[in-house]
């Protein structure tokens, strides 16, 4: 007699299935995280598609239209000198001391500010990851040497290091990336080493060794995938720090140099006009602040969600569980 088994399969609409996923649920149900995540997405998109998003050319100087207040059009301003190239230009965030549109400059500045933040984290992360892997996996002398260097670098204030390196090498985009690479790698080296020390004793590493995998394969195929979450968390929280430091460097005149401009450069060039045109200083500052805040809030959520001891506080119980009588966390 044939056994009759009924296989219960639930076919869910892929879209609803996606929304039901615990991670997505956790993301949507936390308003603070949702807002910061959406804001970050907007900023990144605006930076990527800057030429299409920006209302005006960020380098277009309209001297008669200098220091126009936010939410006003060019016509309202005094045009006693020569008439501007285009009439009826509307400036959402006003213009700077050379009559350039603030909003467009901010959007293009995001490319450099975010670029420094992301590239700085990427380069320092790869460097720290490599050294941390070596320190944790080989232990012994390699570990001692690398970790002592980490200690030395930890005690140097980042800005001090940056000022000295930029003083010697000169300023420029890639030199700033270099500064963050040598100034932030130890963060990742420390985290990586800690995780690797624990992982290398795990049975799956032993098994890989038993099959005859070499060190490179073990490190890259078996250990590295386990490092992605902790490293991502550190990285997300370090991006705002790098963005803030770059802004500070540019403000001091050691960072991005005109004609390129990051948000820090804009703030620095607007500083003399702070009493007559407040928006020139306030707007880039708000941009830096909101971006750094969003990265921080998103990063801290990422950290909590990837920590098994904290995760439950952020996860909402699923519909099925609620029906089974589990309370909302």
């Amino acid at each position, binding site marked *: 007699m044939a056994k009759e088994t009924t296989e219960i399969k639930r076919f869910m609409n892929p879209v609803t299935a996606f929304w039901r996923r615990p991670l997505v649920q956790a993301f949507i149900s936390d308003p603070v995280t949702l807002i910061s995540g959406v804001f970050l997405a907007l900023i990144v998109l605006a930076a990527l598609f800057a030429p299409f998003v920006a209302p005006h050319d960020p380098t277009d100087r309209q001297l008669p239209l200098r220091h126009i207040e936010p939410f006003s059009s060019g016509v309202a301003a005094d045009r006693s000198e020569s008439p501007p190239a285009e009439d009826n230009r509307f400036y959402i965030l006003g213009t700077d001391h050379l009559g350039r549109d603030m909003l467009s400059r901010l959007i293009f500045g995001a490319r450099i500010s975010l670029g420094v933040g992301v590239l700085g984290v990427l380069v320092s992360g790869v460097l720290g990851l490599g050294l941390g892997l070596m320190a944790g996996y080989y232990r012994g002398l390699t570990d001692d040497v690398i970790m002592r260097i980490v200690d030395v670098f930890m005690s140097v204030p980042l800005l001090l290091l940056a000022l000295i390196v930029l003083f010697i090498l000169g300023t420029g985009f890639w030199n700033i990336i270099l500064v963050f690479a040598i100034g932030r790698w130890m963060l990742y080296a420390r985290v990586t080493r800690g995780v690797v020390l624990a992982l290398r004793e795990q049975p799956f590493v032993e098994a890989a060794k038993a099959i005859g995998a070499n060190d490179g394969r073990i490190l890259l195929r078996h250990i590295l995938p386990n490092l992605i979450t902790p490293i991502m968390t550190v990285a997300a929280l370090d991006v705002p720090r790098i963005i803030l430091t770059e802004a500070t460097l540019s403000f001091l005149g050691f960072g991005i140099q005109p004609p390129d401009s990051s948000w820090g450069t804009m703030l620095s060039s607007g500083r003399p006009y702070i009493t007559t045109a407040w928006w020139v200083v306030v707007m880039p500052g708000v941009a830096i602040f909101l971006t750094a805040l969003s*990265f921080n809030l998103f990063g801290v959520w990422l950290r909590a969600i990837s920590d098994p001891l904290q995760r439950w506080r952020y996860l909402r119980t699923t519909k099925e569980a609620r029906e089974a009588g589990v309370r909302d966390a």
Partner: protein
Amino acid sequence: MALLFFAINVLGNPIRLLVDQDAPPETIAALEKKYGFDRPIHVRLADYFASLLTGCQLRCSPDFDKSVKYKVNARELVIGRLPNTAVLALAAWGIGMLGIPLGMLAARRPRGLFDRAVNVLTFAVVSVPEFWLALMLILLISVQWGLLPTSGFEGLGPGGWKFMVLPALTLAPRVMGRFAQITRAAMIDELSKDYVSTARAKGLGESTILYTHVLKNAAISIVTLMGDELAGFMNGSVVVEIIFAWPGLGLLLIGAINGRDLPVITASVFVIALMVMFVNLIVDFLYTWLDPRISYAN
């Protein structure tokens, strides 16, 4: 310090930094000879460390220790500026201590309404660029309301307090935010431990548990993490000193970098590195005081 040596000697030519860009080669050669940069690198390294131990800068001779700009001994100049920076730091960290009770209250109910508010608030203050906050404070308090002077310095005595309020207020929020975050994390960590359940089981009041048991144990993590924050604090201090024209180490250092005053740069970095090491030493001693189980003697 070795780092500084390599930075100066390997990455770039120090003499090029001292002279104008279009200086004739003869001048450069003469200066190289004067400062001893024509010698091989290992001789220079040895000389560098010897000079640090004996308390001189670049090379031991009264001529080379002098600040190019101020014509006085660079290290004395730096040490003279040290108290100004230290007082500012103390004021900022004093105000920043307010973050500890904030973090404790937040830790009582993680993910509660108060905790969420503190979370956003602390990350907000940590995300504000210091130089921007300084400018906003000047714009509001000094320019709009005319309450305090925009910048300046009138000694550390009672008359100078007016000039200290704004720099301290600029630096304090970040310290406070970090204190609150660290305290919260450490407290939540401690509150999940078994001894807390024991204390609750035997009927101790919640505030007794928090203040006498948990806070004391959490203090170790708080002290460690805040020790790490100090190096970061120097970043903000430099900027704030520049904006408020506060004559501390940061202002001196930036002036020296802009003026290519190599002896002063070396001396400032040396003193800042010493300060960081000194604070780390204090942190280590605090451990043994907070937790007698930790001992450095064998």
